[in-house]
């Protein structure tokens, strides 16, 4: 399983802070993004950044390993 986390405004639009998504061999971040975007279109309207296992990721073709932690995030507003 892949652990997907949401925070702040994205979590509010998804309606939860965490989801478990079934791992499929060969899947990449873009596949996961599109799958969740289909289910939560309003939340993904504001998604700007992706992190995998605590690191910023820019290449959405990066493969997702089983048991990864993936976070789709909106623009930050700390400080």
């Amino acid at each position, binding site marked *: 399983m892949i652990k997907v*986390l949401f*925070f*702040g*405004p994205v*979590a*509010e639009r998804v309606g939860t802070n965490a989801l478990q998504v079934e791992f499929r061999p060969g899947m990449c971040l873009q596949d996961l993004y599109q799958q969740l975007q289909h289910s939560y279109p309003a939340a993904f309207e*504001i998604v700007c*950044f992706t*992190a995998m296992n*605590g*690191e*910023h990721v820019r290449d959405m073709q990066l493969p997702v390993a089983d048991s990864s932690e993936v*976070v789709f*995030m*909106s*623009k*930050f*507003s*700390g*400080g």
Partner: protein
Amino acid sequence: MAEHGFKVAVRIQQEDFSQDEEISALRAKSQRMGGIATFIGCARDFSEGRSVSRISFDAYGSMAEAEMSKLRAEAIAKFGLLDARIVHRVGVVGAGEQIVFIATGAEHRAPALQACHWLIDELKQRVPIWKKEITPQGESWVTSHP
């Protein structure tokens, strides 16, 4: 984990912080420090034309602390600092209260001031923290941060 009785240099916490304690911890690192610059971000009671009573912060805590630690290390290397500290609060912060603290210490004032400015700008862009303004008219997530 404390070092010499002081709190760690990079923290995310719910409780308020003391700038005196933070500056004391910074100064304890070196007596060669000739310049210390600080930035304190506070919760404004007015935003986008309406009163704000409180601000609620959500954070991807583990990544936020890791990014803040990276920022501190980058600032120390980039500006030749003797030390730097970054503290950010999460949870609910009342209007007028402190949100974020940055302190930079260097041999001279210029790198301390430049690093402090650089750190708060980078923090806003790179650290996964989100703020929600709580107003008498309702609550709304802040999506832009000039």
